[in-house]
């Protein structure tokens, strides 16, 4: 199944991209996606345990993903 991962702000700068798609096995979780992101070039400059959202809501590491889900790695927010 295909899952899109969005990167923002400092994380997008550090990896040199705003999004990346992964082909994952059925039953894959947020933790599995983080593992794939952390294998990308430049990912050593990301924190090991970033905030993650799935389909625009904050999600925990054991959240199971489905075909077409949108995962976002969320840098520390700084609005206001």
């Amino acid at each position, binding site marked *: 199944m295909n899952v899109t991962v969005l990167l923002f*702000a400092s994380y997008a700068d550090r990896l040199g991209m705003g999004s990346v798609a992964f082909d994952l096995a059925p039953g894959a979780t947020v933790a599995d996606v983080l593992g794939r992101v952390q294998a990308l070039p430049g990912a050593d400059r990301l*924190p090991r345990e970033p*905030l993650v959202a799935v389909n625009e809501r*904050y999600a925990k590491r054991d959240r199971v993903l489905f075909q077409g889900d949108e995962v976002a790695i*969320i*840098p*520390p*927010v700084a*609005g*206001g």
Partner: protein
Amino acid sequence: MRTRLVRDAIDTLALVSEVGRTGNGATVLFIGTVRDVNDGRAVSGMEYRAYEAMAARELSDIANEAAERFGTPDIVIEHRLGELKLGDASVAIAVAHPHRGQAYDANRYVIEQLKKRVPIWKLEHYVDGSREWVGAESAASSGVDALNVLTGAKDSR
């Protein structure tokens, strides 16, 4: 209630008019503005970016929570995105309520939740020409504590 991400200057007084009703005895307007110094560095401007779909949804959720918690539907929130100059309003929150206590509390709730949850980031431009993402952490830091708070907050609603 109304919440919006905007690209142009926020008309803060229009927000006040929007929440005004004769049943309300108190209106509180919060305006966040771009400051000329942050952490001791001279700032020349600011760029705000967002995960827009999620930011819009979180803003709307926060307005609904504040309405329910403090008992007023008269809440308007606008957050600006893009390039801002010193002194520009980046966020404006207007809350009106029959009584001042709840108007202050609801307004405070909105800004504090916004700063915790809404996926907006700011790229600070400094007088020396450099730029930096505000709050960007090092590779050693962890978002797990924040995640537990955020997902815990969701579970309890």
